[in-house]
């Protein structure tokens, strides 16, 4: 059961940690260029859903289809390659490599995909300009503010031209002004590049930047557009 036109779709996902069910029949889909917020209380299973969708963890059962390919049918190496080529990630914090400069951080996914340093850094700088942090190129993550670091992380997530960005509480460590600016830039850049965004958040103001929201409760996802 894959919704028509969807880029990434999950059906009836189940995942248990020990005796605790984290996902209990969750389904989800996102279209190209669509921003979908995944909401729900703490411990509801929303991060587990994101990790399954991104191929970081494997569900116990259920299917995940990305661009017509079944994720569970892929080997670990194939899934890793897919993550590098098609997926971008933004987390709450601690995602930039502290030893590298900001521009090297943004260029990293391109370098891992085999792009030469000069070309990778040129693309990285273009994205940093879009995210209004091009003046931080030579600085290291420890030398920039939380808001700036998060914009660098968004630039990095977009640099390798992914098809999907997974953002797990991307503004969780920021004040509301910085958080809103990060969301504005992330969603604008993603929409203009036709990149889908799966946005996990518990903040309604952040979710309001999405096109649609899905609520995870007790391991089940519910599309709120079709709520009673």
């Amino acid at each position: 059961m894959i919704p028509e036109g969807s880029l990434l779709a999950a059906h009836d996902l189940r995942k248990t940690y020990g005796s605790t069910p984290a996902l209990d029949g969750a389904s989800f889909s996102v279209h190209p260029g669509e921003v979908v917020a995944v909401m729900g209380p703490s411990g509801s299973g929303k991060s587990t859903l994101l990790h399954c969708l991104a191929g970081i963890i494997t569900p116990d059962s259920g299917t995940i289809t990305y661009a017509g390919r079944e994720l569970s049918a892929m080997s670990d190496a194939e899934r890793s390659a897919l993550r590098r080529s098609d997926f971008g990630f933004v987390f709450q914090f601690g995602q930039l490599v502290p030893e590298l400069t900001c521009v090297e951080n943004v260029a990293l996914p391109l370098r891992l995909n085999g792009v030469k340093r000069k070309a990778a850094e040129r693309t990285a700088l273009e994205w940093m300009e879009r995210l209004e942090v091009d003046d931080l190129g030579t600085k290291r993550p420890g030398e920039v503010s939380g808001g700036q670091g998060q914009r660098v992380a968004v630039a990095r997530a977009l640099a390798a031209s992914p098809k999907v960005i997974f953002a797990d509480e991307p503004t969780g460590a920021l004040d509301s002004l910085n958080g809103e600016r990060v969301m504005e830039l992330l969603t604008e850049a993603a929409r203009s590049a036709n990149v889908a965004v799966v946005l996990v958040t518990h903040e309604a103001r952040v979710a309001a930047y999405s096109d649609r929201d899905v609520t995870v409760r007790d391991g089940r996802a519910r599309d709120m557009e079709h709520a009673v």
Partner: protein
Amino acid sequence: MSIGHTLLGLLESGPRHGYDLKRTFDEKFGQDRPLHYGQVYSTMSRLLKNGLVEVDGVESEGGPERKRYAITDAGITDVSQWLAQPEKPEPYLQSTLYTKVVLALLTGRSAADLLDSQRSAHLRMMRILTDRKRKGDLADQLICDHALFHLEADLRWLELTSARLDQLAKVVAP
């Protein structure tokens, strides 16, 4: 909002016609609710009667007469007092949402569904306001933020109530 005080405040920068007052009010504070001409003229008559404004001149230029209003000293004092007086914080104790949740529980309907659909409606409005904020100027941003923070507060209450439905059902059970 006190329309009288707002119009008085707008007159502090200089005399204006009724039409000009309406246009400035709509531009700065009207958002999606512009003033009716009738409201402007009835408010100005009241302010005139109370000595808070005076007629600064009358023009006709071939058309109907247009009065230009100016604020009086008493009017300036009135605006100062209004601005210095804190707005009474809304206690929010009469909540239709709460009433609906309790009634749903009392009548055996799904309060969880009610909360979910309300949540959805709130988020839809937050999306509209966020979009408007994104495209607007600083004034738009501030007014939309004010609305967004209130809607967010409602949403937090909806979440909390969802988590406490079982508990609430026991308390309100007949």
